[in-house]
């Protein structure tokens, strides 16, 4: 646990120290929203290796980590960017080339596994995935499963319900070493508020042994505590807080800014080819000192003005997307 009086506010670089090589991690956000991208870029810059990644439907966040060589194993349901990419190009290449190990579940399956970890139970029962090859085929080898005690000893188990007799799938819980989420507002003690849908962030955050929160704003505790029922995570679960305005770019952050279609298309175009992918990384990650400089690179004040969310709608209604 972490106390109210701990100093939790730190820089991205300091926070990445909480994620050692080989760590089991998960990132918040979903499809086109609230991935902790500033943190992802910093992990890439710090050249983390052998990460074990748990996701439900990650997108560019995981695709970039894979492309940078940070990831050894993934357990997930999907890797793409919806309307922007039918599959993460670096993920596809890594799987087809045998560069990473993978285990497939469904979205619901993965979120349930995070939920079980958050609830402190070793497994959770479900009716989903029955009849599919997800239930029949294990991705990880036995050797892999034995190599790291943090990996579940098997993918899942099927039993008959002791009450109804129904066939039920049991999914092993996930407790990550570190989960990183991007929230709109946090206070210095660690109370987290997320506006809009929370996706799987609640379960991913609460299943973690350590929790890092990047955010748009750090406010006074009283501001969040006036309506405690609107807060998602109690302060004592949070270990590190980093203020990074626009920290989810190129993804959206409800009520703050929209996703950046131009940049997302650029990434997916470049990431299809090894050479152009390297160039892209050199330009936007390795060749960039800090987040401020990155925001300049992607178009500076003018771009940020275009992405800025309408107060009432929570997104940028005039953004050119087509």
């Amino acid at each position: 646990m972490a106390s109210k009086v701990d100093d939790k506010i730190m820089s991205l670089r300091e926070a990445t120290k909480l994620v050692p090589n080989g760590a089991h991690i998960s990132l918040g956000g979903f499809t086109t929203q609230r991935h902790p991208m500033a943190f992802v870029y910093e992990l890439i810059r710090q050249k983390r290796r052998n990460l074990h990644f748990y996701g439900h439907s990650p997108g560019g966040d995981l695709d970039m980590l894979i492309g940078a060589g940070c990831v050894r194993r993934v357990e997930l349901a999907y890797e793409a960017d919806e309307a922007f990419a039918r599959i993460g190009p670096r993920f596809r290449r890594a799987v087809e080339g045998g560069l990473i190990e993978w285990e497939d579940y469904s979205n619901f399956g993965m979120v349930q596994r995070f939920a079980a970890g958050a609830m402190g139970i070793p497994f959770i029962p479900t009716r989903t995935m029955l009849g599919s090859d997800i239930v029949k085929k294990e991705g990880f080898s036995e050797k892999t499963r034995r190599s790291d005690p943090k990996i579940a000893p098997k993918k899942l188990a099927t039993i008959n319900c002791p009450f109804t007799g129904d066939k039920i799938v049991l999914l092993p819980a996930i407790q990550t070493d570190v989960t990183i989420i991007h929230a709109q507002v946090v206070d210095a003690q660690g109370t987290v508020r997320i506006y809009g849908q929370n996706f799987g962030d609640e379960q991913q955050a609460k299943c973690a042994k350590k929790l890092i929160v990047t955010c748009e704003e750090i406010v006074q505790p009283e501001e969040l505590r006036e309506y405690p029922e609107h807060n998602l995570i109690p302060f004592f679960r949070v270990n590190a807080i980093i203020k990074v305005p626009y920290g989810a770019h190129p993804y959206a952050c409800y009520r703050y800014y929209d996703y950046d279609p131009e940049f997302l298309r650029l990434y997916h175009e470049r990431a299809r080819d090894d050479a152009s992918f390297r160039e892209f990384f050199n330009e936007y990650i390795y060749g960039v000192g800090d987040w401020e400089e990155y925001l300049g690179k992607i178009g500076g004040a003018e771009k940020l003005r275009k992405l800025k969310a309408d107060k009432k709608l929570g997104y940028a209604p005039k953004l050119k997307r087509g």
Partner: protein
Amino acid sequence: MEKKYAKDYTLIELMAVAAAREIKDREIVFAGTGLPMLGAMLAQHTHAPNCTIVFEAGAVDCKLAHLPMSVGDPRTMRFASTATGLFDVFSTILQRGYIDVGFLSGAQIDAYGNINATCIGDYHRPKVRFPGSGGSGDIACLSKRTIIIAVHEKRRFPERVDYITSPGWIDGPEGRKRAGLPWGGPSAVITTLGVLRFDERTKRAYLASYHPGVTPKQVKKNTGFKLDVSRAKKTEPPTEAEIKILREKVDPEGIFLKKVAAEE
């Protein structure tokens, strides 16, 4: 009022209209990005004003003013009834049995409506890797019925998919029951060439309708499994009103209508 059929429409528009027609009023619909969203929104604007759209990312029954580009798009927050997250929606709505219709797509669809969204070839050494299940496997397992959207090519319609990501009727009328699935199963496949449905007795796909300009023979030729076309009629074309709503109300920015049309 006599129906006025549209003369000028694209294939994607025809498919969106066909998708919309699968939705009944007052139903609860699990919609994904792209065609399902176009279809569900069109249905709300026409014959199913009281159908409810649910997004797996959390938003229930929003009033869209701008077309979302993902199910987690901030645009889906607008005037929603509730907005939680994947765990709540998948468990307390989908698994609890409240979804009447779910939409699915995938890289391969077989004779029993099973879908592959995972890979071609051996799972451990795939020739081609796809994005994976996402919510597709969940929707396939736990919706009361599903509608599949697909590009109709021979290699995409094999007798048996390489990997069942999202179970359809599995291997026949008893397949789902044997697997332990409590309900559900695919009711239609809306393709770029026609609409397939499933025989009540065998649960194998047959051609229910072929799109204007397409012949049953063409559909047969582009299907990798033996396809019964004896019951096929011509797909009812979109009406002028439907096309107008699609273009002016559903996707005025042309996010999907233009994009997919361009890729055709």
